[in-house]
């Protein structure tokens, strides 16, 4: 995750310690005082979902899928994650609210010292369930909206889904839960970005996470729905501009980018062009501490059947299964050549990523996109939108970042 508001507007957030090793300088209570050593674990509690979104990486279904980890198994998984030192579990799906034991599992995670957060389509959240989530110890609810009403409903395969998600957002905010937007940027909805931020800002939302499309699950069929690199660049620039406009007005919205670490390089270029070279240096130094794309290191995924994946988007390959081996052992097993090579990926990157001057803060972007498009784990990320002159190992160009 790259925090645009932290990097460009110096807005403190509770993830500063976790992400940038910058807890001491932050005015906000911190998720962690030290930069994370263990991964944030996404747990897809279920494959069931009440919606049918075209970009769903979990290829979720309305039918119950066999093999879901039970409540007791889930608790044993949380025990292992807690003993291993996992800082955060993101309860995800499918739609996690279709499971009746969600509240119990959130409470259990919280009791074991893991920070429980939730990823949901929001449409099943009522006033009562929002209060139950809060009382169980939930720290954050990320609610997916993927465009202005008509576009969102088309994307999500259900009319009324936008209004239902906004009702869910209101319920969470009324219950005093920290609540934010999750928005997957595609060719279809990039033009709605500004409108959605304005609309949800008026509802009281102050945290906005923008996801680039990764090419796993149902998303693999819609690679052609992804923005072109130039359009992606324009969308990220718009988000940077928007964030700065809000901050100039004194409205401290938190904006984040997920799923394409070329964004890190772009933010430095943007800061240099529009704010100044000191700002660019400051942004660069934060990003060095962040450490680039987290796949196989700072993020992990456990699916509903207990298979362990490199990220939540990489469902086609599993490192092992928690029913026959603890997560901690699977994650530490560098005898797995894919895991080992990914962790030393800067030695193996090829093409433009091999010589890129931003390699230390990006680390080659998405290896899953490279694999899907080029059949090569270490080929360049096809969605890198940095220009050749920007990534050249020599000194930075004077004019860019438009």
């Amino acid at each position, binding site marked *: 995750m790259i925090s645009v508001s932290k990097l460009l507007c110096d807005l403190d957030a509770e993830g500063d310690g976790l992400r940038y090793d910058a807890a001491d300088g932050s005015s906000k209570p911190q998720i962690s005082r030290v930069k994370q050593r263990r991964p944030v674990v996404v747990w897809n509690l279920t*494959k069931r979902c009440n919606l049918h979104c075209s970009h769903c990486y979990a*290829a979720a279904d309305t039918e119950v*899928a*066999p*093999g879901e*980890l*039970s409540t*007791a*198994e889930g608790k*044993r*998984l949380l025990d*292992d994650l807690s003993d291993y030192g996992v800082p955060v579990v993101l309860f995800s799906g499918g739609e996690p609210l279709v499971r009746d034991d969600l509240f119990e599992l959130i409470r259990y995670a919280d009791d074991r010292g893991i920070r429980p957060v939730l990823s949901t389509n929001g449409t099943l959240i009522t006033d009562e369930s929002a209060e139950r989530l809060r009382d169980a110890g939930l720290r954050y609810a990320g609610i997916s909206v993927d465009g202005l009403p008509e576009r969102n409903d088309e994307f999500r395969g259900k009319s009324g889904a936008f209004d239902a998600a906004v009702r869910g957002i209101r319920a969470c905010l009324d219950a005093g839960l920290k609540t934010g937007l999750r928005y997957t940027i595609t060719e279809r909805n990039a033009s709605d970005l500004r409108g959605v931020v304005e609309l949800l800002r008026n509802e009281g939302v102050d945290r906005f996470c923008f996801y680039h499309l990764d090419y796993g699950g149902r998303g693999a069929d819609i690679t052609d729905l992804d923005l072109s690199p130039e359009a992606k660049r324009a969308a990220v620039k718009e988000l940077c501009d928007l964030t700065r406009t809000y901050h100039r007005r004194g409205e401290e919205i938190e904006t984040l980018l997920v799923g394409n670490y070329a964004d890190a390089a772009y933010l430095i270029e943007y800061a240099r062009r529009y704010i100044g070279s000191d700002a660019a240096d400051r942004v660069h130094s934060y990003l060095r501490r962040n450490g680039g794309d987290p796949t196989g290191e700072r993020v992990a995924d456990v*699916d*509903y*059947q*207990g*298979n362990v994946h490199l990220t939540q988007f990489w*469902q*086609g*390959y*599993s*490192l*092992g*299964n*928690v*029913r*026959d*081996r*603890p997560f901690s*052992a699977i994650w530490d097993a560098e*005898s*797995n*050549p*894919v895991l080992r*090579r990914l962790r030393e990926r800067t030695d193996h990157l090829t093409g433009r990523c091999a010589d890129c001057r931003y390699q230390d803060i990006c680390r080659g972007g998405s290896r899953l996109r490279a*694999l899907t498009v080029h*059949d*090569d*784990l270490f080929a360049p990320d096809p969605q890198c939108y940095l220009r050749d002159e920007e990534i050249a190992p020599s000194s930075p160009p004077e004019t860019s970042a438009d």
Partner: protein
Amino acid sequence: MVEKPDRYRVGEHPREAVEHEWEIFVREEERDPLRHVGSVSAPSADVAYEQATKLFAWYANDLWVCPARAVHRYTTDTLDDDAELVELGSGDEKRTHEP
């Protein structure tokens, strides 16, 4: 007296989310043992082999794929509700073949 571990047989849970699941084994050098390196999702053995090749071709000498449903897992450490302890003998009965 031979020290014997308590080993459980993991329940026969489905491992197939969208497509079939295939366990992958690779042999790095000709004289090495096969090593289990995870599993891939694919509709057939040939596609599973293709997927695994993209991940391991640069590394492996041999590559085997095996349907996950054909693999019965016995482990000392499981969180599985359906796991069953497999009773072994006491360890001091006479062996058929002495080493």
